[in-house]
């Protein structure tokens, strides 16, 4: 099995995730795209772990999974709050940070 397989798959997923982050209006969808990105990173980590035959890559992948879970929890809570306050989760309507 070639290393490039995993790595290219991860890269493609990453790029798709990036596109999602940029293109999606719905905040929940943006979070989903971020999950895609995180998973692609995990794929990379596992691939490198395999390459070096060491458990550290696995450990880091697990870290990322845990952090992702936390991130999703907090992110969705924020989305809920925004929804409650503004009755919408369309990101392009949120421009409080406009300079």
């Amino acid at each position: 099995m070639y290393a490039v397989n995993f790595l290219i798959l991860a890269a493609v997923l990453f790029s798709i995730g990036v596109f999602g982050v940029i293109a999606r209006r719905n905040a929940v969808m943006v979070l989903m795209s971020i999950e895609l990105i995180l998973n692609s990173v995990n794929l990379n980590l596992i691939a490198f772990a395999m390459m070096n035959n060491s458990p550290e890559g696995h450990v880091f992948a697990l870290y990322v999974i845990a952090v992702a879970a936390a991130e999703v929890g907090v992110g969705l809570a924020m989305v809920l709050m925004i929804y409650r306050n503004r009755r919408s989760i369309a990101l392009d309507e949120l421009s409080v940070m406009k300079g």
Partner: protein
Amino acid sequence: MLGATLSSGWFLENAWLIPLIPAIGFVFIILFGKKMPQNGSEIGIVSIGISLAISIGATFQWIDRVNSASGGSDYASGGFFGAFRAIFPTAADGGYGASFVEPVVRSWTWWQSGGLEFGLGQHIDGLAIMLLLLVTFISFLVQIYSTEYVSGDRRYTHFFASLTLFSAGMLVMVLAENMLQLILGWEIMGLCSFMLIGHWWEEEANSRAALKAFFTVRVGDVGLLVGTAIIFFGANDWAVEHGSNGFSIRGISAWALSGEASQSVLFWGGVALFIASIGKSGQFPLHTWLPDAMAGPTPVSSLLHSSTMVVAGVFLVARLYPVFFVGFDILDTTVNFITIIGGITIIVAAALAFVQDDIKKVLAYSTVSQLGYMMLGLGVGAWLPAVFHIFTHAFFKCALFLGAGSISHSGSHHSFDMKKDMGGLAKKMPITAATWMVSTAALCGIPFFSGFFSKDEIIDNASHNGYQFFYYVALVGAFMTPAYMTRATYLTFFGKPRGAAAGEHHDEGHDDAHGAAHADHDDHHDDAHDDHGAHDDHGAHHGPHESPWRITAPLIVLSILAIGSGYLNAPAFGTHYFTDWVEPVGVEVALDDEYGHSSGEEESAGIVFAAVQAGDEEYDGKAKGCGFADPSEGTVCYAPKLSHAVFSWSKAMPSIILVFAGILFSAWVCMGIYGDRRNPFAGLTSKFAPARWIHTLLVNKYYLDHLYEKVIVFAFAHPIARAAYWVNQNILDAIVNNVGRGGRRTGEWVYRNVDQRVVDGAVNASGLAASEGGHALQPVQSGKVNQYGALLFGAATVGAIVLILVNI
């Protein structure tokens, strides 16, 4: 073995205490004076008294030392002391046969620089001893006098503090071991004169006079600083080689006479130092501060003008005489800088004294004129007569000033105006009048009074040393002095009483003289007089009366000395004590380190050469000697070998005749002008144009004050200073401001002309540009997360690509 046999003693060794005690006294007066029963005056008097006691002790020990040097030395040609003295009057060239008397020099490290250590200490020789005694004595009398004269003044304590510090300053200068110590004392005196002349500073005139005095002297001080610098670097290498340094008075003296000194260095150093003397001693053309300084209280004037302050300039020349002697080629030429200034001063000041109405100003100009005599004396090589004149002049001038003070205090109700408020006081104030007469006689140079012995010696030596022109100048002065003094005496003590002297009371003079400070003066005054019973009518009648004892006692003492002091050195009577004790002997002295540290280990740093006197045989009896030929190998000279004119009554005759002529002529004219008789002189100035011109010129003091105040000082204080400041604000500062403004303009230009979307790259220095750049970038900050994401990832991608490309 002279160094070992010279007698010394506690007083001589510890003469440095003499200035220190008044200095400490000053601190005590400032700190505790107001709480003392006598408001601090007792501290001043006691401290000066102790100094006086030490000075007296030191004087006796010095005399002893001189005697032991002359008597105990094998080298002394005169054998034992008595025999030496007996043959002295016939030894025409003075100090030739006398022995060298090692000064008592001590020094402690004061500061160091460049690895050299400079000292603070004492240099006690005859000149220093003479002035120490003089200064402490006169200060003591003046302080006693002042307790009465300024009693009740609101700044009584400060007055005594300043007076004490003033004496301390003079004493520091007198026993200065080196030039810096001399400057220290010199400047302390300047400061105190500022405080004392401006004592009644509520009046602007007084504070201006104080400022003028300080400032004029300060102008001269430029010369002192520059001269010290020149001499220091001239002398330092030579002096260090010989165990001293370029500040040490002994080092400088020996270097100047060593023959290795550069003539031009000596000349320019001498000129610079002499400028300082001109400022301090009120010589022409910087004499103008002296009469104005009469704004101070009278005891101050008397102290300033008799033994301190103004004498400092003369002292400086006398102290560093070798520098001037060699630098100005004294005795080799018929004219030099010192004689010119001294000669001009004698005449110019004496002429001014004729037109003064203020009695103190007459005395002030007479002081200037007498200082001219002293300078002239130094200039013509008559060192000893000049110094002797300092000595005698101090007594009679002090008496005269104190007498004037006594008159204003008790006779003319605080006025000093002879024409308005005096006249006929001889009967009312007999003691004051008598002491005044005696002192005047001394000042005029009437034979058998002290002034005669000193002034006549100067005149005589001017001729003896070949300064014929200045001999005549001095004779003219000898005529003028009695003339103006007779005028002043006549106006004050004879004729009809006028104004306050006649008992009239007018507030004008009162206010002028003492200002606001005097309001409580009077109150206290009455209390003081109650103590004396006889004068309790002061507040009620204000009639002239004799002054209380604290004023008259110093007067009497001084007037006795005005006669007696002259006999210390009266060649007419064969006395020459003063010469023996004071004059440094101009002989070669062998350098010998062995004796350098013999008189105490404290004399470590900066002490000079140990010395023993070289044998007389080295002179071979020739006319050459110190100051005329270079000292032989291994020896140094500390003073030029000066000769003295031999006194004879016939040589003294011209001046005696002129003195009496002056008195008679003046008395005649005065009675003519001020008296009742009709006389050709009455109204002379209004009738006769040249006389009027001269009178106007004199009244305006030769317009020198105009020149200084209205032209030079005014120019610097106003147009020039303003111009400089204008340059500062409008040119230098404008450059800075314009650079700033230009920077801003450039920024604006860049901002306007460079596309705003690119501006963020070229961040303008001004905050404005940054803010505008922010506005330009505002659209990017949409607040939309997606856009941020796009930017973030886009930028990251671009960055990654760049990195990759770079690393390929």
